[in-house]
């Protein structure tokens, strides 16, 4: 059914949604690419494609309604969410609220409040050559998009991009991580109660189901997770030339020098490291500092850990557990690297590993060869800032880079000389929530989201030029037609030419001031005297 024009004037006829076999809605070329055995997903995807074709999800009011329903889902299921996170990750209440509920809610509020602005066509600058034309950039949804979540922040990492995809007008397939079982079940059961199943579907399952799902064509794929699986997702996207955002990870370095208060630095680093027991893609992975700083840092950390968790961390209600046996075993082996300077206790029956700091690690110890993703913090020693920069640059580009210094020159030197998804100075993790594009570079990922970048990720910017066809514009442009002559060529060249010029800064401000002054002058002279 094509949308009727509001004014009723249309040369088009409307028709009902044709419940054709949904397979037909794929282009002929795409049909030829599909080699899956009918696995049931083609019906779900066919339904979503039909819904998208009907134009339902493009309507702004509809999108707002769906987003508001999602907001109600968060508000009305607060305790269920906290319980599901506790069941999957033994997540303390404050962390569940601050790291998931508040993040999801605020991102959603941002989308709802700004939807009109985000969805509005852009009117870019026009050059002289397009003076009589209309130039617009339209914001078009891609179509049917797939969002694959991760298990470490099992709600937020799925539902924030899903909200962006909905806001941008797409139909969405949600694939929560099967590892976070309770959260996955919560989403599968609750999501359809609030949002339109014609346009948004939750598909649950493990590796087999995901592999099957990835054989189908999507118009965009958003994946959060490991580097290894990211490559598999990208390979699946190859077949259909599907664009992707991959939010991966890496080893996020944390540089500390002697110009910061080490107690505060230790607090901010340990908070970023031990929230969610280090299972955070932007947790400070390892520290890089001199031996002197290392000694002081460990002393401060000892005090901080005691202050936060008491003498027996395993008894504290404010400390989580490792999510899976596999990860637990992997992390325990890291304890054999270097020297345990702090912590080191673990309990397999509880998947508990206490906050641990390792020193004397060598650059190719296992703990320095892969992303840790746990509460183990190795310290690598360097002599000076140049060593630190070389160390960082010798490795894959990380998702985040942390710099603890009050020396602005050193800070800027590190920022200029290294590359990372993002940089946070004098704190950790908090750059996640401030209107900045969040994403990786190189091995840590491609694409970025949050705020307006979330909306833009799921949008195709369609440039649209409307040219006038009247007598004048035809006369102005008919020099382009053969037979070609030097005169025509010179004329066209002249019309198109960009010139090197100087821009007057604050031109519009100066103009406004001058206009105000002139208006006041003339009004006084001619009207008020």
């Amino acid at each position: 059914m094509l949308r009727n024009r509001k004014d009723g004037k249309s040369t088009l006829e409307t028709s009902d949604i044709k419940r054709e076999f949904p397979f037909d809605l794929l282009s002929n070329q795409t049909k030829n690419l599909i080699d899956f055995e009918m696995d049931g997903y083609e019906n779900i995807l066919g339904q979503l494609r039909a819904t998208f074709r009907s134009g339902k999800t493009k309507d702004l009011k509809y999108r707002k309604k769906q987003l508001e329903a999602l907001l109600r889902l968060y508000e009305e299921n607060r305790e269920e969410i906290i319980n599901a996170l506790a069941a999957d990750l033994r997540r303390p209440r404050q962390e569940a609220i601050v790291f998931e509920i508040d993040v999801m809610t605020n991102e959603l509020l941002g989308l709802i409040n700004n939807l009109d602005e985000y969805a509005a066509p852009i009117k870019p600058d026009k050059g002289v050559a397009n003076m009589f034309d209309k130039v617009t950039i339209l914001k078009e949804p891609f179509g049917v998009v797939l969002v694959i979540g991760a298990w470490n922040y099992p709600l937020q990492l799925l539902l924030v991009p899903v909200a962006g995809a909905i806001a941008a007008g797409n139909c969405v397939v949600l694939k929560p991580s099967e590892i976070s079982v309770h959260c996955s079940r919560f989403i599968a059961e609750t999501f359809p109660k609030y949002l339109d199943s014609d346009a948004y579907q939750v598909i649950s399952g493990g590796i087999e189901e995901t592999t099957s799902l990835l054989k189908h064509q999507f118009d965009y794929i958003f994946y959060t997770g490991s580097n290894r699986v990211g490559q598999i997702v990208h390979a699946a996207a190859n077949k259909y030339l599907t664009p992707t955002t991959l939010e991966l990870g890496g080893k996020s370095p944390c540089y500390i020098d002697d110009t910061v208060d080490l107690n505060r630095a230790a607090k901010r680093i340990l908070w970023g490291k031990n929230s969610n027991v280090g299972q955070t893609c932007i947790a400070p992975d390892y520290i890089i500092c001199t031996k002197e700083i290392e000694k002081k840092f460990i002393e401060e950390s000892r005090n901080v850990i005691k202050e936060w968790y008491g003498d027996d961390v395993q008894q504290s209600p404010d400390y989580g557990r490792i999510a899976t046996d596999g990860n637990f075993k992997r992390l325990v082996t890291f304890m054999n690297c270097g020297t345990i300077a702090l912590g080191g206790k673990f309990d397999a029956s509880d998947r508990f590993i206490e906050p641990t700091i390792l020193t004397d690690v060598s650059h190719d110890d296992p703990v320095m060869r892969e992303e840790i993703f746990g509460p183990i913090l190795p310290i690598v020693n360097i002599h000076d800032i140049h060593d630190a920069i070389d160390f960082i640059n010798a490795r894959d580009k990380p998702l985040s880079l942390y710099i603890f210094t009050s020396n602005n020159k050193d800070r800027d030197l590190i920022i200029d000389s290294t590359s990372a998804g993002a940089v946070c100075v004098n704190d950790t993790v908090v750059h996640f929530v401030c209107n900045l594009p969040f994403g990786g570079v190189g091995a840590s990922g491609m694409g970025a989201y949050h705020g307006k970048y979330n909306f833009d990720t799921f949008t195709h910017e369609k440039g649209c030029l409307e040219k006038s066809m009247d007598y004048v514009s035809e006369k102005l442009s008919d020099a382009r037609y053969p037979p070609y002559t030097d005169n025509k060529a010179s004329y066209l060249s002249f019309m198109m030419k960009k010139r090197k010029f100087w821009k007057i800064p604050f031109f519009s401000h100066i103009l406004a001031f001058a206009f105000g002054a002139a208006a006041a002058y003339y009004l006084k002279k001619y009207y008020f005297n």
Partner: protein
Amino acid sequence: MTYEDLMSRAATAFQSGKTKDIDFRRKQLNALLRMYEENKDEMARVLAADLRRPKQESYILEIEFLINDIITTINSLDEWTKPMKPEKGIVNMMDDVLIYPDPLGVVLVMGAWNYPLQLPLVPFGAAIAAGNVAILKPSEISVNCANFIAENIPKYLDNECYHVVCGGVQETTELLKHKFDYIFYTGSGRVGKIVYEAAAKHLTPVTLELGGKSPCYIDNTVDISKATRRVLWGKFINAGQTCIAPDYILCTKEIQDKFVKEAKVVLKEWYGDDIKKSPDFCRIVNQVNFQRLTKLLSSGTIAVGGKTDADERFIEPTIIVDAKSTDAVMQEEIFGPILPIVNINNAFEAIKFITARDKPLALYIFSNNTNDRQTIIENTSSGGVCVNDTIMHLAVDTMPFGGVGPSGMGGYHGKYSFDTFSHKKSCLVKKIDTISEKLSNARYPPYSDKKINYLTFLTKKRKGFSIPYLPQLVLLGVGVAATIFVQRILPECEQ
């Protein structure tokens, strides 16, 4: 030099930090501009050698286009390389929030043969502006242009930072095994997939400028004479070997007849009676494409043209009427001077026809019925749209130019080119003094409901209000106030 050596040299050049320096970049861009300005005749010559391209087409579609693009880049370099300062929420009031446009590293730009100078050199210039080390691989099919690039880039640009690699399928396959920090590819969908797959192995992000069948809808509300001219111009420049050439027409039988009648007049006006003798019409680039196109002539009814000459690789402007969706000419992107017309009854049927096929690179709509235009634009998807003309949307460099779905991913031109080759590195600089620590220490354990409420309150998104042009409005008010004030004082001074 082996590719290992090349990649090693490129990596070393990038690590030296040379290309990050903005003055260095500006120098290189100015050198590139000089390369264009000092070699205009040579560029026209190599384009003529590869494609039998008439001088005017070479100038307007490539040489001037390149020069204008570089001038825009040089003019905007300072503005584009400045870190962005996005809006801050309350929670970041005391912090610095910035986005740095970082270069990506060593990037690969692969050109195409149909606009063999402009298509590789525009992204190449942008890669330079964005601070990368760049490797350019021109298409081997347009041999003379590839040689021109290979000979001249080293003469004008820094030899450590910018390299040209020539070669065919084998060399390209070898090159693609290496890890780049970005790959920009222009060409066919088939090779685009190969590039995407090779890039995926190293998780290299890409822009793919591909193609497809760009539909051209014409209804009876436009002046058919002007419409025909604009469609035929877009179709027959470069002998149809343009990624955004109007591939086929969708119109009613009546319009088809009028279009064909008008086309005959226009073609005669443009090329004379014997088009082969006209200096203003290109040739097909090679025998492979010539053979492919000649086969397409057997589908449907030829209403105009149809003559070919294998020796010259000449195919005259040809219009096929009553084309069916099953015809050979409707199965793949034509990329030649053959224009099929498919009959539909109305805009609704046109939309159905378009959406049954892969999303195209461009969609053309010739109509003065704004309702129909809007409905077609809203119910179809394409890389870009041009209403009442063809090709021209490519020249508006404040709009992103690129495809969607099978027609490509990513968009460039103007600032979009610079952004393509940049990584937006977010940067949050927090204070670590007593006050900021006091404000944020509620996040630490031991956790409590009080701490939770405080943090939720601090981070909550509120509906802000912003008055557009507030600074300008304030200054307008200041202008008014200043004048009134001065006028009050002046009379006193005069006395």
